């Protein structure tokens, strides 16, 4: 397998910038997930890499070779799409061996069989080898598609939302298999998705992209715990992080539209360079504490809604006129709508963002 590098790649469609001066390095054997909303430029990035699109500016490197002007076939990367794109009248075996029959590859029938058997076994579809692909379930079809990519033994795999068409349970199972497979093959894998759970659970590193710009490229833990800006913080995590408008004066945080004030610890203030003025505060629902009793560290709020999620409850509360906070509690928590409750934050877990740039204020 091979390392991949995009160097200042820009791609436009009809003058509209889809990918904007994007630089990205994926290491050999790395599972890299490009995460972003629809229209962020993630699929375009993938297509520039595969050669299906040519970049307007910038260079593309695979295995340290400049492949910018190479055809897709010569780049030797394998794509897997959301749509299965199998030959419906052929068996699984025929579908898997098809990419190996190309004359350019010059692979002997024995070698072909060896690879097909190996891939089928790895993907646990060996019992389906002689079945026609239109007799397969969605999960099996996607396994065959993945198998067809693997059998070529390419330099790298590029996958574009391959699990999107599958139901939740199957996605959960295939997520795991895909990760195991990537490790076993030592594959370099670029995976595109809008689903943050897929990104968090599978990636060695996540690249969060918006409007063609790569905002943050980091390990999942870092992306979740040290988001670079409001967008990243809001895109990753379920339930969504709370954003509150606030004001910091002399180490006191006051939330807008309320008199709710929290004394910030010295280490928290140090972390954000003793900022003062208007800020956006981010706090993840699991870092909001709710309690029935008031004490000197809590402020009052009104219950808006309790959602029973099974393993936990999601509790939304109102503070002041306009702001709302969601907390995760254990599943035994009960409260009536409009009842008073007292809240506080895990201070170490507070995020602070600049009100104008929306960038993290953490130094």
């Amino acid at each position, binding site marked *: 397998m091979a390392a991949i590098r995009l160097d200042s790649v820009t791609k436009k469609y009809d003058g509209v910038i889809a990918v904007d001066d994007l630089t990205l390095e994926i290491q050999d054997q790395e599972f890299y997930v490009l995460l972003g*909303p*629809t229209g962020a430029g993630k699929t375009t990035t993938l297509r520039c890499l595969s050669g299906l699109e040519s970049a307007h500016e910038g260079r593309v490197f695979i295995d340290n070779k400049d492949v910018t002007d190479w055809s897709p076939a010569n780049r030797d990367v394998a794509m897997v799409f959301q749509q299965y794109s199998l030959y419906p009248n052929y068996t699984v075996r025929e579908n898997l061996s098809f990419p190996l029959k190309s004359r350019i590859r010059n692979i002997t029938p024995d070698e072909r069989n060896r690879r097909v058997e190996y891939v089928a076994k790895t993907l646990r579809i060996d019992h389906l080898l002689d079945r026609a692909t239109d007799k397969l379930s969605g999960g099996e079809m996607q396994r065959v598609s993945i198998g067809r990519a693997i059998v070529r033994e390419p330099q790298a795999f590029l996958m574009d939302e391959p699990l999107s068409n599958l*139901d*939740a*349970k199957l996605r*959960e199972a295939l*997520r*795991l298999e895909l*990760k*195991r497979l990537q490790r076993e093959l030592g594959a370099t894998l670029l995976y595109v998705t*809008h*689903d*943050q*759970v897929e990104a*968090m*659970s*599978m990636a060695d590193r996540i690249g969060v992209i918006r409007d063609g710009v790569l905002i943050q490229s980091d390990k*999942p*833990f870092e992306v*979740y715990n040290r988001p670079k800006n409001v967008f990243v913080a*809001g*895109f*990753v*995590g*379920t*339930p*969504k992080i709370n954003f509150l408008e606030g004001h910091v004066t002399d180490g006191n945080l006051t939330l807008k539209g309320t008199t709710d004030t929290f004394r910030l610890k010295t280490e928290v203030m140090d972390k954000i360079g003793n900022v003062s003025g208007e800020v956006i505060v981010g706090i*993840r629902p*699991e870092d909001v504490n709710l309690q029935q009793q008031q004490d000197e560290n809590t402020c009052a709020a009104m219950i*808006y*809604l309790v*959602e*029973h*999620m*099974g*393993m936990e409850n*999601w509790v*939304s509360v109102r503070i002041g006129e306009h702001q709302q906070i*969601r907390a*995760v509690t254990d*599943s035994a928590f009960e409260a009536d*709508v409009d009842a008073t409750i007292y809240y506080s934050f895990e201070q170490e877990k507070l995020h602070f963002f600049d009100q104008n740039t929306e960038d993290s204020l953490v130094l």
Partner: protein
Amino acid sequence: MATIRLSNIVKRFGPLEVIKQLNLDIKDREFVVLLGPSGCGKTTTLRAIAGLEEIDSGEIAIDGQEVQALPARDRDIAFVFQLFALYPHLSAFDNIAFPLKAAGVAKNEIAAKVKEVASVLRIGSIIDHMPSAMSGGDMQRVAMARALVRDPKAMLMDEPMGSLDAKLREELRTELKHLHIETGSTTVYVTHDQVEAMSMGDKIAVMDLGILQQIGKPKEVYDNPANVFVAQFIGSPVMNLVDCQCDGNGDVTHVVIGERHVDRFEFSKAIYEKLKAKDFNQKSLAVGIRPEAVLVERQPTNGYIKAEVDDIEPLGPYDIVDLKVGDDVMRASTRSRYVEREGQEVWIHLDENRLHFFDTVSGESLGI
């Protein structure tokens, strides 16, 4: 508002029976979610209530009155679809006002009603916008407002958030449910998304293969699933289900998993007694345990058995960890970074209060 009662509903498409003897009782002001995979019959059920689909046999009663012979327009029910279905040439206000105008409501009353419902759904600021200038979330809010403004006997919703992105769904869910608490409209809501069902339903009706598998409050369905299907359809990650054998020698219960018969969990004698009272079949017994009820320790711990970490999925607030026990794999959810690496040895136990046992042939829960 109204009660809805379905009695012995059967619906066929050609030779295919898509709803099989369905009985469902929906109370006044109740929010009931019909939950199941595609093809389970949930949308057909909803359309039958609305009158968009004729049933082959059975009765549908709204507020005690049989309506199965009535056309859709005479049932006084509002329907919200997955697709926004707004009039593209009308502003948000006119879209919402449309059903009132059609009913000949006075102008000033229309204005007052639209204003009220728009404020609840927080679309006051876009009330003059045309649909083409609205985001997907706003469009769906307008569509909901249009359904609500009529003050119908009941609201029927068919995956109304299906086409919205995850964050917006999360937000709208909270609003919709809060709105329901305030207005108390009887609501039947169809979805394949168990998170939506859990978070919004007063009750969840789980369907599969045209059959109602279980109906109950979210917590009941989650904590006491009636069968394997319900157990594994609700909850993410999916409930672990492992073939096991159970014996009650001495004053404890042993639950043995795997082919090697060496991995055994120990519980109080009561577990065995309860299983015996249910006349369980040793040959078709499986233990079910939700990932959050798998207890994980990094050090050897009394009563725990050894497992090997096969995979770690960091989700942010917690990690999902796959653990190899003999030939079986169990998933546990643990504190973020509690388990350090793949290949690590850990010790696990199952929370006795949260054990489930199923008969693997019938799929039924033994109700322990």
